[in-house]
């Protein structure tokens, strides 16, 4: 053993990239000379100072591998990936090691085939803030052909709080412990596709079987090991990258996301590393319903709907049509609607079970669906999220406000707004964090903060014959606005709202919201203004890369600085390239008996 320790020292193995990857070590300190593991659980380290000292952890590991200790709790059974690497790096003669007996490991992993690793991305789900940016997990395919039987490896916070604010606070600041868990993939498909109504994207990873095996060994090492979970950086997607690095240590993915790790950005990085060899799409039940409903005519759709609502007397079909094909389409739709309504708690379980069995029996009698030639089930027209625009955006432009020329600079760290190309994002959604615009007014020679959003979330979800979602928004930050007839000033604003949206034409979305606006600022009379308001608008994709948003907003401030404010805006964004866009925005606002017309032309770049 002393020989091995000497060899490890001589080769400086503790500096080896593989050791760094397996222990999740990151450089730290003023001059990045120190090392520190991002794993917080002391159980993960064999040396007392292992978390901050790669060298002593390595030596403790070598010693532990030679200890006579055996069984599931022994170091060799607990850290098979470390062992696997050291065996080769130190040319360990296994016959000189005490025999390892790891029944739990053997049962779970020994001799199993690991065919393929897949990075899975369930897209965002607007109504659940915790899922706003989506999520990622890794699927590991074993000997089975069916993907449903694969392992889903998932990193998540062990959170029990149901209070949204508390959840957000604790999540942002690392109060939760994050753990890896493994479930059958079918559980994840049910959870995302059927419960949460999130489309899933499956990116096949171009890893060799040996690399996948190394990943599995490392997952084993991380069982029951916690790291503190931070929504923004040390989150689900970030921690999965460690698994990829363990599979192929020369990869360095985690360093790119030290400040924040947005799931779709990590997928892009994995793609840039040449690791994606194919992609598959697994639509949510809501998406399936939209597709199936498009094939069913009005009266049949109404019939399917009545059955799905568990209406009395509507538990069997009253067929209007003789066509077996049409009956199949209608029945299939009824089945999906029924499951959807049940998963949303819209019908009680007893009704669901009865109706479900009845429509399925009817479906069984209708026989096989006529084959549709040449139809690719994966060709749904859905756009790959990793092909969407970059989530950061910077812009520079020129404009006039009340005739005064200005230069505007803007920057948005994340993530998507209503005018950005919706490919790969949830259409009708906006999520922006800490976006900032500053203006330099040329004549006055003054730089002013024009707008800074702490957070801006808008969810415009169209209502139709079946889906009846509520649209909502929450917008808060600092804004330069009129505080008297001829004066502008920076005020704090908090602007929540709720309402409805409907599809307008082929590519349009119309919405109307009731709002409240709370303003606070030194220049306001009484230093604040609060009032109800309303807004309405149309968002449309006019042609190719031209998207417009025309909207109006009225606010009646009834407390504090009482006044009425009316604003109109017509914004146009032209996509110039995959990551470039040009904005033309015309707007005007009326308050305190004066008007503020504005026009801006701005060039944006996503990255």
């Amino acid at each position, binding site marked *: 053993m002393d020989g091995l320790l000497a060899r490890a020292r001589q080769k400086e193995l503790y500096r080896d990239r593989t050791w760094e990857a397996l222990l999740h070590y990151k450089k730290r300190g003023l001059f990045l000379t120190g090392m520190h593991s991002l794993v917080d659980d002391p159980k993960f380290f064999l040396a007392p100072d292992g978390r901050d000292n790669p060298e002593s952890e390595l030596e403790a590991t070598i010693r532990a591998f030679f200890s006579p200790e055996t069984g599931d709790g022994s170091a060799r059974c607990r850290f098979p990936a470390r062992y696997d690497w050291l065996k080769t790096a130190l040319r360990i003669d296994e016959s000189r090691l005490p025999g390892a007996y790891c029944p*739990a490991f053997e*049962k*779970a992993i020994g001799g199993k085939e690991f065919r393929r690793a897949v990075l899975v991305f369930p897209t965002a789900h607007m109504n659940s803030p915790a899922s706003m940016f989506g999520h990622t997990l890794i699927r590991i395919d074993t000997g*089975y*052909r*069916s*993907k*449903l*039987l694969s*392992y889903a490896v998932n990193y998540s916070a062990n959170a029990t709080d149901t209070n949204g604010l508390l959840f957000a606070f604790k999540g942002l600041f690392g109060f939760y412990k994050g753990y890896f*868990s*493994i*479930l*059958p993939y*079918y*559980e994840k498909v*049910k*959870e995302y596709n*059927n*419960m949460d109504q999130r489309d899933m994207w499956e990116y096949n990873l171009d890893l060799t079987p040996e690399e996948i095996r190394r990943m599995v060994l490392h997952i084993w090492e991380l069982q029951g090991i916690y790291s503190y979970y931070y929504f923004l950086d040390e989150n689900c997607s970030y921690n999965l990258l460690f698994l990829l690095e363990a599979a192929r240590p020369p990869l360095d993915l985690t360093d790119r996301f030290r400040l924040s790790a947005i799931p779709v950005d990590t997928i892009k990085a994995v793609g840039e590393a040449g690791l994606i060899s194919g992609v598959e799409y697994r639509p949510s039940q809501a998406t399936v319903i939209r597709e199936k409903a498009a094939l069913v005519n009005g009266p049949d759709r109404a019939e399917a709907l009545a059955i799905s609502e568990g209406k009395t007397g509507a538990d069997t079909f009253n067929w209007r049509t003789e066509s077996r094909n049409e009956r199949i389409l209608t029945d*299939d739709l009824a*089945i999906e609607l029924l*499951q959807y309504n*049940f*998963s949303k708690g819209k019908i009680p*379980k007893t009704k*669901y*079970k*009865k109706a*479900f*069995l009845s429509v*399925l*029996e009817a*479906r*069984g*009698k209708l*026989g*096989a*669906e006529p084959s549709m030639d040449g139809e690719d089930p994966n060709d749904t027209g859905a756009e790959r999220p990793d092909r969407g625009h970059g989530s950061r955006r910077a812009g520079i432009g020129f404009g006039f406000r009340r005739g005064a020329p200005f230069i505007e600079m803007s920057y948005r760290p994340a993530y998507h707004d209503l005018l950005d190309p919706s490919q790969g994002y949830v259409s009708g959604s906006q999520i922006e964090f800490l976006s900032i615009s500053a203006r330099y007014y040329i004549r006055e020679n003054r730089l002013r903060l024009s707008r800074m959003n702490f957070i801006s979330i808008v969810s415009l979800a169209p209502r139709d014959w079946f889906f009846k979602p509520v649209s909502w928004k929450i917008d808060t930050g600092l804004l330069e606005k009129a505080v008297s007839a001829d004066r502008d000033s920076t005020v704090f604003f908090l602007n929540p709202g709720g309402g409805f949206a409907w599809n307008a034409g082929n590519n349009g979305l119309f919405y109307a919201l009731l709002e409240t606006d709370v303003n606070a600022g030194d220049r306001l009379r009484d230093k604040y203004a609060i009032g109800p308001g309303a807004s309405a608008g149309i968002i449309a994709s006019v042609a190719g890369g031209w998207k417009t948003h025309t909207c109006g907003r009225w606010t009646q401030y009834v407390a504090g600085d009482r006044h009425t404010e009316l604003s109109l805006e017509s914004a146009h964004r032209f996509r110039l390239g995959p990551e470039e866009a040009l904005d033309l925005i015309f707007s005007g606002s009326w308050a305190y008996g004066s008007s503020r017309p504005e026009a801006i032309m701005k060039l944006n770049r996503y990255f």
Partner: protein
Amino acid sequence: MKRLVLSFITVLALLGFTTAGFAENIHENVGCGLGTMLLEKSKDSILIEILAATTNATLGNQTFGISSGTLGCRQPARWASNELNQFVAANMDSLAKDIAAGKGESLDTLAELMKIPSGGRAAFYSKLQANFAKIFTSENVQSADVIDNIVSVALS
């Protein structure tokens, strides 16, 4: 002839299960489900050996409408020999849907777990579809019965 081939295949599948499963400890994971009850319940069943071998980590007597399935049963190490039972218990709704439609991913998974060779699957699927009511006998049918019924239908 077709029927004969199918029966033969299914019997092979049964044998496969029995031998594959016997090494497992039956009472290992009772906390997760109702393994013992399940066994007593299906005493007269032709599937007795399979169930004895595969119910140790059963998820309980699942019926329709269990959408989040496997509460408390998340030990991956134990999937090894219980896949069929677990799969059917956890996927009753989607499996019923696929059987009624005569196709689908859950049905493919069932066929794979029952070791039905790809050549025999089309016949297997249409037979299950035609006999939907014999497999899902009531809205309160339970997963163990469903497996029973599938095998009876396949052998009939």
